[in-house]
């Protein structure tokens, strides 16, 4: 119920942000931000009630992770909007959240059901590992939305000078890079805490499990972006493309790896 409402509000927020970008009317901006805040409140309420009902943090399966992922993207976006005092990126960034939310609401009832906590998940590292990874993913989602905005013609003016209501591309790129700078340490912390947890649970900190490999691939992708960023020839649209692709890698690590494990019949300890 709460999730359905939150999903609806997310759609409403995206439409309002698009309308606001087109018309520039103040009330549409407030409507967009208001819808986003309500959507965030509903997701938060759903997660809290789910956690209370389950007796553990709602971080134990892909459905719950997806809801937290949406929460993280929206929180990071609202921080960006507050510091930017601009709403033009809202529609683009919330598209990333909508993509993940759509994955969550289309899960089967079995996948959405509250499950008992598995013995392997009885660890304080669960919260630290998943929450730090989520904050990284949330920041990368925001960066991808900004990257998309940078790539779509007509949404940003080139160079550093402003041009009417069009956002300056340099400003978008700076905010995109700021989101990357925020996300990368959180992803690193997520991998670090995952390694400590794996050592405690399985006696090895790294086992080339498909999920671990793709966490490494994601980390290497963003490391690559951070290394290419100082090169002048890679700035602008090329960097934005890499950031958008990076979010694709994040999504593959999240939803693609279980599919890969099933399809190629691999063994993975990350079945939850």
């Amino acid at each position, binding site marked *: 119920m709460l999730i359905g409402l939150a999903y609806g509000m997310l759609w409403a927020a995206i439409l309002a942000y698009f309308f606001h970008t087109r018309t520039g009317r103040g009330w549409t901006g407030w409507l967009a931000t208001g819808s986003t805040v309500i959507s965030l409140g509903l997701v938060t309420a759903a997660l809290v009630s789910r956690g209370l009902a389950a007796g553990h943090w709602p971080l134990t399966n892909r459905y719950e992770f997806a809801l937290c992922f949406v929460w993280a993207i929206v929180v990071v976006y609202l921080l960006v909007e507050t510091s930017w005092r601009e709403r033009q990126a809202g529609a683009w960034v919330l598209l990333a959240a909508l993509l993940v939310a759509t994955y969550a609401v289309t899960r089967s009832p079995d996948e959405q059901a509250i499950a*008992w*906590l598995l*013995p*392997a998940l*009885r*660890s304080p*590292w669960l919260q630290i590992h998943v929450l730090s990874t989520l904050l990284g993913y949330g920041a990368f989602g925001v960066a991808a939305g900004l990257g998309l905005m940078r790539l779509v013609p007509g949404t940003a003016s080139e160079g550093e000078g402003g041009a009417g209501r069009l956002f300056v591309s340099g400003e978008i790129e*700076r*905010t995109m*890079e*700021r989101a*990357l*700078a*925020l996300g*990368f*340490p959180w992803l*690193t*912390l997520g*991998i*670090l805490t995952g*390694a*400590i*947890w794996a*050592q*405690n*649970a*399985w*006696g*090895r*900190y*790294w*086992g*080339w499990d*498909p999920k671990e*490999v*793709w966490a*490494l*691939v994601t980390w*290497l*992708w963003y*490391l*690559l972006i*951070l*290394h*290419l*960023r*100082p*090169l002048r020839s890679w700035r602008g649209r090329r960097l934005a493309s890499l950031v958008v692709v990076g979010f694709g890698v994040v999504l593959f690590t999240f939803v693609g*790896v279980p599919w*890969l494990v099933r399809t*190629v*019949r*691999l*063994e993975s300890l990350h079945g939850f």
Partner: protein
Amino acid sequence: MARRPFRQVWDFLTRLKVAAVLVLILLLLAALGSCFPQIPPPAAVDAEQLAQWEAHVQARYGVLRDLLGAVRVFRWFKSPVFLVPLVLLAVVTLMCTLDRWRVVCRRAFRSPVSGSDAVFTAAPHTSRLTGLPAADLPCIVRECLRQRGFRVRSARSGDVINLRGERNQLATLATLVTHLALLFLLLGAGLSYGWGWREGFIIEPDESVEVGHGSSLALRNDGFSISRYPDGSVSTYQAQVAVLRGGQEVKRGSVWVNQPLTCDSVGVYLQGYQGGGNRYSVTLLAVHDPGYGWVIAAMFVLLASTTVTLNFPRGWIEARIEAGGLLRLAGWAERHAFDFEREFAALVRELSHWAVSTQEDVV
């Protein structure tokens, strides 16, 4: 002359693009490797398990099995195809660290107070203010910079006073620390791979087994308990394990899934159980991993240094006060000092308020 080819190779390998290409190659190889089943560690040291696993792979891949085996896709992450670029990346990382060490240390510890005249024209942010109160100007500039978190030093040369404000000056070192941490991480992984061992045991109740690997330890299963949820699924389970040396008990404790027992740098992990009623045999894993501490310490350092590099960028502002209240300003910051441009403009605005009659020229 002999140095020239060496220098060319060195210059090539320390280029940022080379590191980027190696990172790209590694991530593509890692992604490719994730598409194939890897030989599980127990099968790699047990001929019977290896034969079972190979039969399983043969059934799945059929005629392709020999071809895939020949290119070592089933041991992908230990194959030269993967390890050579990894080692090359480590070498390039080390070379980049050595290459930049002096320059970075100079920037961090020995940046001069007064740069050349060219700084005031070539820096990304420059400004020129006139009509300022000459006598108070050094104090005003110093205070403005200090309020913005800059550490200020000054030097006088005749009538000219130079001030230099530095922020996050030592953050320059963080990139080097990141690279060193990566090297230590790989070193730790090498220690784990070369000197670590793992041994699994199924131990019946009240029985003990030798751990081996020269550890002179033995493990005894002293009991097992399991708790279940109302629907019968397993909530948690634990084994009572005694560690023996020469038949004498040296340590005893409960081993849970996330809570191993450690004795003499050997960790004992609970992997599973078999049986029912009051008789459960337990599957324990004994692990000696001398690289674990290195890897985790390196990752913490890596985390701290990347956080500093990405979120505490270095920036400096240089001020030159000349006769007659002429103030020239130059500013530079790393690319991810996102607000520096705004901050520089605000500083110029604030300083211009002190002018009796100011002419401002901001670039």
